[in-house]
């Protein structure tokens, strides 16, 4: 699904060059749940942003669904993004001025989905994520966990091919954080492809594979054993 080869990203200011990513190669297959870890400045967010088509690479190749993404115009990127990618952020990034319903509906509007289908889909996903009773509320009226659920609902509403999560539990207490991680695990169990950046070993342990980054390079890749399954009531795979 995602093939990254020798990807580099250089930030230039007048005086110095900083290599945020150097020659990174990575493959993510359909149905994978991969987490990226590393200290701050290791390039993990940059990598996620490039995968999410929010940032562009200086060198190398990035194929999404066998289509080269490097060098695409803004308009094409925007199209590829809205068709294939769902985002979940640490700070939720909900629009405060819109109700929960309107927030979730937004991607469908930009994908030109008809109003009746939109309603159906929003209600379905809200039901699935247990926020049906919150649809009329505004983001500020919800708890952090609930806000992140709304953000997840928004990320999922378009049936994206891949979900990108940037420290999804970073702003949440452990109880709410756990809920969100369980949600992601559920999604994965139902076949979603997820790429997650995190600081937390605990969160990473929910994923199948953890990539460790430092100084813009991939240090190691390790496959997680499923010892956390104890905490999850139903069995995975």
């Amino acid at each position, binding site marked *: 699904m995602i093939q990254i080869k020798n990807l580099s990203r250089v930030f230039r200011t007048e005086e110095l060059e900083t290599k945020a990513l150097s020659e990174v190669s990575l493959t993510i297959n359909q149905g994978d749940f991969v987490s990226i870890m590393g200290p701050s400045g290791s390039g993990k967010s940059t990598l996620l*942003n490039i995968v999410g088509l*929010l*940032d562009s690479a200086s060198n190398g190749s990035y194929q999404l669904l066998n289509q080269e993404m490097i060098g695409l115009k*803004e*308009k094409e990127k*925007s*199209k590829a*993004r*809205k*068709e294939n990618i769902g*985002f979940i*952020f640490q*700070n939720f*990034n*909900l*629009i*405060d*001025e*819109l*109700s929960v319903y*309107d927030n979730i*509906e*937004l*991607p469908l*509007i*930009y*994908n030109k989905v008809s109003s009746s289908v939109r309603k159906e889909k929003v209600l379905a996903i809200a039901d699935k994520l247990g926020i049906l009773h919150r649809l009329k509320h505004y983001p500020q009226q919800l708890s952090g966990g609930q806000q992140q659920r709304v953000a997840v609902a*928004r990320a999922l509403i*378009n049936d994206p091919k891949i979900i990108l999560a940037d420290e999804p539990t970073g702003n949440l207490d452990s109880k709410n954080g756990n809920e969100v991680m369980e949600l992601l695990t559920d999604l994965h169990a139902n076949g979603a492809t997820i790429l997650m950046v995190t600081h937390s070993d605990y969160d990473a342990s929910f994923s199948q594979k953890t990539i460790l980054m430092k100084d813009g390079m991939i240090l190691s890749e390790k496959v997680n054993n499923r010892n956390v399954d104890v905490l999850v009531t139903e069995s995975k795979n």
Partner: protein
Amino acid sequence: MLKNWITIFLYHLKNNKLFAALNVLGLAIGIAGLIFALLYWNDEQSYNAWNPEKEKIFQVLVEMADGKVLANQPPILKSLLEQDPEIETILFSKGDYVNDRIYYNEKSVELDKIINVQSTFFSFFPFKIIKGDAISALKDETSIAISEDIAKRVFGDENPIGKQVKVFYGMFVVRAVYQIPGNSSIAPELLIDRIGRDFDSNKVQRDIFNFKVFLKLKDPSKAEDIKKKIEQIYYNELTLNNAKEQGITPDEVIKRDGRIKIILEPLSRARLHSVVDGYPEGRGNYQFLLIMAGLSVLILILSIVNYVNMATANAIKRAKEVGVRKIVGASRGNIISQFIFETILMSSFSILLGLVIVELGLPYYNEFLEKELIIKGSEFYLQLLVIFMITVMVAGIFPAVYVSNFETLKVLKGNFGRSKSGVWLRNGMLVLQFSIATFFIIGSHIVYQQVNYLSNKDLGFKGDQVMSITFTPPASDYYQEAPLLQNIFNRYITIKRELSKIKGVEQASTGIVKFGDGAMSSNVAYKEVNFQGQNMAVDFGMLDMMKIKVIKGRGLDEKFASDTINSVIINETALKMMKEKNPLGKEIELLGKKLKIVGVVKDFNLFSPEDQVPPMTIFHATSFNMSYSAIRRVYVKLKGDDMENTIADIEKLWASKVNTEYPFKYDFVDKEYARTYETYVKQKNLFSLLNIVVIGIALFGLFALASYSIQSRMKEIAIRKTLGAETNTLLKELSKQYILYCAIGFLIALFPVYYLLNKWLENFAFRIDMTVFPFIFGFIILLILTLVIVLSKAYQATKTDVLKYLKYE
């Protein structure tokens, strides 16, 4: 999508009520200003536009040697032009409108716009004939045509065709009723054709200029040839004749009198681009029209700039929203559309509010322009649509593009509120606002000074407490053979005697003159010198009453018998032109009669104070026979006390002794005179009003911008404060950039203000010099207003809680 946009829009509207309201109001005022200007513009431009002949009709104007242009022509042109194959038709008309009452059975209606024209009138001005027909409308001297409005007022529902009415001195038959299709340079209420009779009575004096002449050419491009032909006619009939009579060569006549030039002015240019008031409806004031249009465009620009500034500043608050929208799939186009959509909504509110303002202000505006403008017409709504689209484009596209260029990543990482992006745009616009404000502050100051100068100028006469009463003897006094014309003068003498009996009347006299409007114009000759003089026939006491100073010799006096026959007084300007050191006792020639100079008066303003004082002669009304019939006004000086009763007494006298039918009309000379520069007083008032509006809008813009910009610097302020900065230092730090913008804006406006105002001042023969004072004053005012706004905002900022901004990250 729309619903989503509207939700967000309403949310922001609710949370920024004050700014949104001020923004809409600002834009509405800008749009209203433009609509006002547009209504005026459309009205002026529509003059004669309906007339299909407008490019083929020309008025014959004469430019005299001294550059004065006259619209009146001598009757000799008629026979000589009639044979010309290039001319389709000719129309002679007798001067301006006259007024009289029209009688039908028991009913009578006062008419102000009666005009005496040839029967060819309707082929020049094809009014829509609703009753009767154009061909027989003026078929003989007893036929008249009347306007639809008059027909209704006189006849009600009756059919006026064939009915007999009484006007002036006799009976007439109504042959046609017409409707004028649009604004027309000639828009009479009643048409009458007595030109033939006037030609006959003018046979003796073939070169008296008293007809307006219009030509309809077969081919308008031949106008130049016709013009040359008429110049040739003038040469043959005037120059050659004069030369023969005076026994000199034609070249000497030209050398002495100058050459007469002809101007053929197409009807299409008559309203706004004419050199002279050749039509009874007069000219439009093109300069004032341009000023109105220019100022209103400036104000609209100002309010659009305000809108753009507010929108971009506000957009920072919405950066997150834009970022999120982009993440979930909005393209740049989507974002731009959304923000333009918001501008469309705001502009729609503004345009509606603008229309409300126009509707409410229209009566005052009409009074101001002395027009009857109404909001109507498909053309107007089309223009309104164009204004709307331009407003949306200019006001909407800047902020929309600006917002759509936000970098998603930066926005979502936060801290965007302190972004420097777009600051140059906002500051540039701020400078533009300062420029426009400078323009208005300085401009209105100079206009104010000039108009003040005019109204306080020593006019050379004193018109306060002097009534100028319209003197209209009954029609029977006119239309008598020449010797009996004395009727009118005799009637005046009687009235004068009666007036002196009224308690409260200090003095009464007459003069064939209207202050501000002029006297009789004709050639004055002294030895080799000729000039076009303003010649004022007066009764004894007139100069004394008007406090016109005699500086040499004496005024006219009853004691001298010769003063009613051949004594004349000249003014300083005339004296200068005559180049005569000892004028007393010398003779000048006027209208074929020799007059002896007995005195010289100090120059006084006869025309509007913007004009030069013309050379003048003053003589007793009985010196020339024709003066009798020209008495139109009686001047009465009142004593200071109990003027109300005095005026009532005079009115009674008028009703019984002057004309029982004509209403009593009077004005005070000083007020009547002030009307000559009324348009400038209006321009002054307009400028002052707009000045307030402009400064209001600009200050609001500055206030909003300063609020946002200081808000975005709160962290900096907090850090400076923790490091020990004092309030004074902070205030200086925060306000210095605005002082800089203020100065730049001021400098940019300097040249346009200087240039345009100088151009405006060129209208005046008597004008102020542009000093540096209004400029310094303008800058200080601008600076003070800026500082008040910025410092109050900055002071607020320095007093806020430091911790709030330091903890934020």
